[in-house]
């Protein structure tokens, strides 16, 4: 049950992150041209940094805030539940043999 809920949460966070990425990518294409747009498509991190550097000028500050929040949630989910998914975690105590 908990696993399913976390999965749905991760899916929603991923979807939100993708939507924010596409919005900022469109702005990048419109503002900087095709080449930088393709570069932004290849390297999402470039799009993210560009978005923040131009957030106030383009009026996308709220989008960038939402995207950053979603990324943080994604990192927390990966860290918390990614660790829990490691085989053998938590380690079982070894049996006592006579």
């Amino acid at each position, binding site marked *: 049950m908990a696993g399913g809920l976390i999965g749905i949460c991760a899916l929603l966070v991923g979807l939100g992150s*993708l939507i924010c990425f596409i919005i900022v990518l469109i702005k990048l294409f419109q503002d900087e041209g095709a080449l930088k747009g393709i570069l932004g498509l*290849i390297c999402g991190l470039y799009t993210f940094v560009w978005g923040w550097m131009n957030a106030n000028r383009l009026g996308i500050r709220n989008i960038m805030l939402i995207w950053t929040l979603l990324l943080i949630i994604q990192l927390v989910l990966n860290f918390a539940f990614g660790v829990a998914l490691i085989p053998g975690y938590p380690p079982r105590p070894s049996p006592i043999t006579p």
Partner: protein
Amino acid sequence: MPRAMFPQHMFPPISPALRDRKFTFVLVGATGLHVALVSLSLPSWECPFFRLTGIPCPGCGLSRAMMLLLKGDLSGSFRFHAFAPIFLLAIITLILSVLLPKSIIQPAISRAERIERQTGLTVLILAGLIFYWLARLLFLQAAFVQLIRG
């Protein structure tokens, strides 16, 4: 003066970015942090497209490929992404543009911009990257996806 190879609206993306030291500094910092986290197998930036669709984007695998290249594993690097050397060179260029004084870097940036405009080098590299991605998707999709998924 020779005419630019491509229309004026297709501004070269790399050399003008080198003039914006603030942007370059932030980009280099973010990239360095990302590569460091990946090398330590810690959660880091994930491709939003791949995360939702399960389909790798043209840049998927570049971070791990560059990390392997820095470790000297050429075959491993090539397996993840063949364009890693080019992107690593670009990142080194970005780092130098931030660290070196303006008096040294400005003439180099002007020369780089001229080369970009006259040869269309960046366009060729980006086009090659897209074709490389499409070829991997069309002919090696299962292996490609499995490699990126890890």
